[in-house]
């Protein structure tokens, strides 16, 4: 039963559009799946390999801009951005990895954060290539109906789920966990830590970049402040994983559902809409203090807490 659970859930999700959901609900579903893709990517690097990145917006943005620039400069369909972004984002990941992977722990986190900001400022200033703050608009939408977009992102999500699962269950995954637990010990056992950290970073970056390229196609408009956003992309990515469950397969999915619905819920309450960062921040603080491994990761603890609540 447990073996077929991923297929079962993917099947249920694939059938969802058939029951005739409204356009708004389709949008929410697409966002949930997109965020779980990004969350899975971050989880590979942060959860399993222990390299907490604060700059996943960098990869997301590079992916999004690859598709956007391809469309804007050559007139090709922005969908070609998906395959193109794999190459471009991988190159960026190697470069960023070369610089940032010299840093350990919290310093790596800040190094990647700085990378995200550098790329944002560069995209704002290189107006000849990126159109700067004007952003890039995809003028012809491929489909009006959201169902097609839904299936594309679903395929992407299922593919990345299996890639992450395969990687983590292979030898590579054990190397990652060894690096997370103790980098020096891993090194002394003959694991080339720099190499495997680069592998984790590139893989994570490529998946995030694909989500970014999809975002360009789906939303039809990108600008540096949206796709390289620190709070709305990088931090939300971390929150998706932290809330859902660090180093679990289902964590990012659970986290994405909670975060997207929470964001929509807060935004729909008048007057409170402006305060959504406060709610996110408070949620983050509470999660870190009480459920440091996320809802899926701390499942036994959560159950115990709930039972205690019932008896008293």
């Amino acid at each position, binding site marked *: 039963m447990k073996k077929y659970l991923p297929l079962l859930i993917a099947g249920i999700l694939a059938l969802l559009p058939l029951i005739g959901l409204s356009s708004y609900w389709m949008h929410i579903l697409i966002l949930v799946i997109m965020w779980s893709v990004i969350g899975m990517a971050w989880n590979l690097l*942060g*959860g399993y390999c*222990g390299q*907490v990145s*604060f700059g996943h917006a960098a990869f997301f943005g590079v992916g999004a801009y690859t598709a956007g620039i391809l469309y804007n400069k050559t007139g090709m369909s922005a969908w070609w951005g998906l395959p193109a972004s794999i190459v471009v984002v991988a190159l960026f990941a190697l470069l960023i990895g070369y*610089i940032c992977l*010299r*840093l350990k*722990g*919290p*310093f790596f*986190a*800040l*190094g990647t*954060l*700085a990378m995200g*900001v*550098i790329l944002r*400022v*560069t995209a*704002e*200033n290189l107006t000849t290539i990126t159109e700067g703050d004007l952003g890039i608009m995809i003028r012809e939408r491929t489909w009006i109906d959201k169902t097609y977009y839904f299936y594309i992102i679903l395929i992407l999500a299922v593919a990345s789920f299996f890639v992450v699962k395969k990687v983590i269950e292979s030898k590579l995954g054990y190397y990652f966990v060894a690096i*997370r637990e103790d980098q020096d010990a891993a090194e002394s056992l003959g694991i080339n830590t720099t190499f495997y950290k680069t592998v984790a970073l590139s893989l994570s970056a490529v998946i995030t970049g694909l989500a970014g390229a999809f975002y360009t196609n789906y939303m039809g408009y990108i600008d540096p402040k949206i796709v390289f956003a*620190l*709070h709305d992309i990088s*931090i939300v990515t*971390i929150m998706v994983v*932290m809330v859902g469950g*660090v*180093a679990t397969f289902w964590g990012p999915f659970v986290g994405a559902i909670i975060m997207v619905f929470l964001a929509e819920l807060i935004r729909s309450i008048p007057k409170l809409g*402006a*305060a*959504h*960062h*406060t709610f*996110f*921040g*408070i949620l*983050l*603080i509470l999660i*870190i*203090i009480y459920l*440091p*491994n996320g809802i899926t*990761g701390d499942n036994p603890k959560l159950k115990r807490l709930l039972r205690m609540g019932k008896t008293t």
Partner: protein
Amino acid sequence: MTAPQVEVLLQTILSGLLLGGLYALIGIGMTLIMGVMKIINLAHGELMMVGMYIAYVLFSTFHIDPYLSILVAAPALFLLGVFLQKFLINPVMKVDAIIPENQVILTVGIGMVLANIATIIFSSDYKTTPVDYATKAWYLSDIWKTSPIEISLSLPWTVSFCCALAITGGLWFFLGKTDMGKSIRATAQDKDAALLMGVNVEKMRVVTFGLGSALVGSAGCLFIPIYYLYPDLGGQFTLTAFVITILGGLGSTVGAIVGGLILGVFESLTSTYAGMGWAPVGRFVIFLAALIFVPQGIMSLFTRKRFGK
């Protein structure tokens, strides 16, 4: 180079130094916290923003000079820092989690809440304190009548720089000469040894976080006469502080001062010669160069020789 070009260059370097003095104050706060607690405080810029809003409120309601508001903002920020450390960060340091960088992510959460609360209270408009001396400047020719080149410096920048120097001096005295300062340095050097020597490590952590917050809060008060203020301003200063810390070497106070000055001059040079929009990129070029060429920080260049012997 012709005389006007020399003037521009000197002018740029001098205003860079003035900016760097303020940056150093921000950097010292972060470096202190990093040295003692071994965590990076990503809410650092947001704490500075709180300090700036305190100065702004005092100015707009009671017409108190921003420089005098340091006397209110620094203690207030000290209390805020103590509160954050005692009730949020300390509990998390004891929690066992898969990701070791939990405290860093926690400070991000704190920063988000602070910035958002500021947006709700003050709206996201740009605010300034229109003091009457904001546009005044002094000229080199006022002091040195026959000087061959002319240099002008903004008066508030100069006053801020001098205040920053005074605060840094006071801090140096506190850390070097008082018992509590010595205990803080001992905790930074070796927590366990300090504990064995009878230093109350928990208390030192709380005091250090408060002190770091107070420093960055007073830096905010020094910044507000010459800068504008909006709720999301914190993020860029957090990054600045981090760049300074990396540049100066982790946990080194002197390094933070040198790093701050270098960064100020470099940023000033980029905005003069490459355009204002590129100034943040210049900051990160320095950051990357520091990471690649002097990963131990600027101060290691001076100490390495001693180790070689």
